[in-house]
């Protein structure tokens, strides 16, 4: 160590010696060629998928507002478009609308009543109205349930061609068509003196066909009872031959006296309900 030199050496001076460490010139030639080949390889080699994803994220990060607005607009448009489509699918054609035109169903409407006298007066007018409806309504009636809805005779599969069917409407049409195909021979007579006579006149369906077409057939009740319950509901009942017979039968059963006898009045609190038993 040079003791005569007045310069005081510090640790910083020693470290700065490393600044002067330089590789020889030939090192840079090799460095250059290696770098060039690596650069070419980097250009040629396919980049991994996450590299592209990171670039997309960088773009998103750079323009968050316009991209967010565009995304919201697109989602809104898709939502509106989807809603329009689903609405067109669900809408039933007017001819397929299920109308509660059966007198029983109509009479089962709850109505507020102020007094018994009013109820009595209304009873006669309702009875008259129901008589009219019964005369005009197609008698495709499902048994004697008070909640039953009625399908007008105008409903047919052929009528609905060219219209958009909802899944419900499709199923409904198929069921009706099935009933048409499996129409049993209905009795010519409209009025029977007893249930036994009626049952005897009904030609029973073949059991296998019945099993296929009628969901109720899978239930347990005996064939006799089932035939009795289902006969009025069968579409064949609404056919041209059966139409007049059923109308006569309905008129007969809707006679004033019978209607009056079959009328039940229910009331609870300030509401009253009128029901008819057929």
């Amino acid at each position, binding site marked *: 160590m*040079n003791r005569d030199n007045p310069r005081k050496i510090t*640790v910083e001076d020693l470290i700065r*010696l490393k600044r002067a460490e330089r590789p020889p010139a030939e090192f840079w030639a090799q460095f250059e060629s290696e770098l060039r080949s690596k650069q070419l390889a980097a250009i040629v080699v396919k980049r991994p998928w996450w590299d592209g994803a990171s670039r997309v994220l960088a773009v998103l990060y750079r323009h968050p507002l316009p991209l967010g607005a565009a995304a919201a607009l697109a989602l809104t448009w898709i939502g509106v478009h989807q809603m329009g489509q689903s609405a067109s699918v669900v809408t039933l054609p007017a001819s397929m609308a299920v109308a509660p035109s059966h007198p029983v169903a109509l009479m089962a409407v709850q109505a507020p009543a102020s007094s018994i006298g009013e109820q009595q007066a209304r009873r006669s007018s309702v009875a008259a109205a129901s008589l009219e409806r019964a005369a005009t309504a197609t008698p495709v009636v499902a048994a004697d349930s008070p909640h039953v809805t009625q399908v007008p005779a105008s409903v047919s599969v052929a009528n609905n061609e060219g219209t958009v069917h909802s899944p419900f409407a499709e199923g409904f049409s198929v069921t009706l068509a099935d009933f048409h195909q499996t129409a049993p021979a209905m009795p010519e007579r409209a009025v029977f003196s007893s249930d036994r006579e009626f049952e005897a006149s009904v030609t029973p369906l073949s059991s296998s066909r019945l099993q296929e077409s009628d969901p109720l057939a899978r239930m347990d009740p005996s064939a006799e009872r089932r035939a009795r319950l289902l006969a009025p509901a069968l579409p064949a009942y609404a056919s041209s031959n059966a139409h007049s017979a059923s109308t006569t039968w309905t008129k007969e059963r809707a006679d004033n006296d019978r209607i009056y006898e079959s009328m039940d009045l229910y009331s609870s609190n300030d509401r009253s309900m009128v029901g008819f038993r057929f």
Partner: protein
Amino acid sequence: MNASKALEKTLVVSPERKLEADADLAIVRRVQAGDVAAFDVLIGKYRERVLGIVYNMTSNREDAADLTQDAFIKAFQSIQRFQGQASFFTWLYRIAVNSTLSHLRKNRLRSFFSLESIREEDPVSREVIDALTDKSGAGRDTFVRELQEKLNDAMQKLSINHRTVVTLFEIDGLSHQEIADVVGCSVGTVRSRLHYAKQLLQAELQSYLPK
């Protein structure tokens, strides 16, 4: 130089650095526009400085060359993502330093040191060497070699983070703020690491420092 000027030097980016950053940004825009050859200008401008940093962190020439090349390749591949919020050299240094730190952490147990020759045409280096030795010829060369090895040992005894800060400040001459940007820590952390690292180096190189 008074204390405030020294503080300014470590914190404020100099006008030369600002001009340099603007020139770099213009070149980067050309590369981003598709002028790939313009990237060679940036390689030529920064390769020695980047290599110097990596070499002083690894103390190995081959590793330094590989890591420097990788840093340039990464910068080239990611040039489209460079926004110009930081200067190009800060961005490039960050890539190089992070690659080197990752390499050092992976190869913590492996250490093959190599020495580059000190160019004595640098006046500061010659002055320091002259002050430390009165020998000439072979004796001087041996002394310098020995000093280099001792310096390398001392640097390698520092932790990776401390070595990085010392390299960037004392060898490459970055300001505290620039080091904080490159390393990704606060200016206070940079100062703290620098102070601690110098204390350790002083203890290690005590025999070369006059009393």
